[in-house]
């Protein structure tokens, strides 16, 4: 695990723009209540989703609650559409995004900077349990392979296609639907990430019996908490807290609770 740093993952050559949305550049005056708006995409269990009573839940939510609790911050939870979530952050509608957000160089730009990575996962090629073909056979069979629209899994699919593999990409709206397509027989395989798949299979043993992971793809990737680049104080505080949490026994309990162990 990386040591805590002041800046987390950032864009090295980017200047830090200070806009009116920047609220946490430096420490707020003593005694002032810190109010943080947490934006998340409720479409991403077990990291962020909603409970039947409408309240937010998930691993990321628990992490942010722990951090807010530690500092005595007020935490406001705001579900937000994924496609405009960064714009909302930039414009001050949100202050942090903790929603299973992968750290990629494209994302860590002048718009958002990340905290230290707090979770790592790997992409996987999944097929039906009775499909005995190898990964290469599947990827070259012209078969339909389902992914989630806009996910890093789709990036993987695109990358493989660009490398000359022969399959059809079917990009659906969520992992759940992509998995559904595999189970329906509409797709012959699925590219997904372990962050989604493993907890899901733990929760749904019947599904787990029907599928098998054919192979993993590439190296592990990581999630980070996104903030405005200018909110240096906030990011530092989050990094400190994350570091503390990740080295405490509490961390494993949290992972355990959400099936991410």
């Amino acid at each position, binding site marked *: 695990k990386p040591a805590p740093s002041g800046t987390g993952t950032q864009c090295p050559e980017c200047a830090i723009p200070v806009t009116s949305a920047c609220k946490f550049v430096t420490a707020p005056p003593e005694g002032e209540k810190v109010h943080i708006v947490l934006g998340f995409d409720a479409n991403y269990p077990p990291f962020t*989703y909603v409970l039947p009573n409408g309240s937010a839940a998930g691993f990321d939510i628990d992490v942010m609650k722990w951090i807010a609790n530690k500092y005595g911050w007020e935490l406001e939870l705001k579900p937000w*559409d994924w496609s405009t979530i960064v714009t909302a952050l930039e*414009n001050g509608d949100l202050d942090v995004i903790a929603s299973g957000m992968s750290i990629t160089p494209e994302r860590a730009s002048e718009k958002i900077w990340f905290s230290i990575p707090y979770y790592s996962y790997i992409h996987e090629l999944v097929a039906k349990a009775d499909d005995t073909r190898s990964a290469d056979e599947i990827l070259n069979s012209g078969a339909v392979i389902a992914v989630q629209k806009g996910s890093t899994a789709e990036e993987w699919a695109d990358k493989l296609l660009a490398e000359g593999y022969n399959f059809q990409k079917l990009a659906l709206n969520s992992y759940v639907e992509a998995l559904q397509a595999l189970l329906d027989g509409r797709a012959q395989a699925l590219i997904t990430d372990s962050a989604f798949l493993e907890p899901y299979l733990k929760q749904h043993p019947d599904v787990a019996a029907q599928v098998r992971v054919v192979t993993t793809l590439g190296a592990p990737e990581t999630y980070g908490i996104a903030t405005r680049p200018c909110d240096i104080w906030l990011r530092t505080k989050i990094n400190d807290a994350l570091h503390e949490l990740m080295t405490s026994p509490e961390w494993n309990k949290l992972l355990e609770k959400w099936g991410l162990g």
Partner: protein
Amino acid sequence: MDPVWWEYIPYILQGAIWTFTLVGGGLALGFAIGVPVAMGQKYGPTWLKAVLDAYVWFFRGTPLVVLLFLFYWGVFPVLLGIKLDALTTSIIVLGLRSGAYQSQIFRGALNSVDEGQMLAARALGMTKWQAITNIILPQALRIAIPGWTNEYAIILKDSAICFTLGVIEILTRTRYVVISTGEALGPFLFAGILYIIFTYGGTKVFNIIYEKYHIPGLVGKGV
């Protein structure tokens, strides 16, 4: 065993408050805009027609997501210097857009009122305005009712797109439930039926109005 998503039914239903706030606000505002725009397009001076055509062109042609995006982060804060909350922005944008569509519904209706009606009204000494409000509009509004029920049905569902700005109504909630429970068909079917009830109920109301104001003996259902 009951499907897990059943527990979420109250949560989905609570979205109806937002749905109807958006629909009510958007439709009413759209009506207030659409009727005068249609009249302007039909009876106004050329320059006004050009302006209104441009308005209709832009708001009818641009996807709602884009409009919401532009108004929430662009037009209001940057151009006008006001920061409106997501709900208000959504209602205004829905209203502006619906106004563009409604204006075309009314334009069609105005065209179906025969020329003699205008002539007779003007012959009585009515101004163009009086003729429109007293004679043409009451007849056109009746003709427009079926089109209006469409607009209602559409805006009812399009309100879902306001989620772009974080307004969480029925359809968005349904999606959350699908994802949170991993069950897709059930919640979607439930939402579908819910919308059918809303659409059908609303359409029923419009139909009652339509039949009530149906001019006796005038128009056909075939012979």
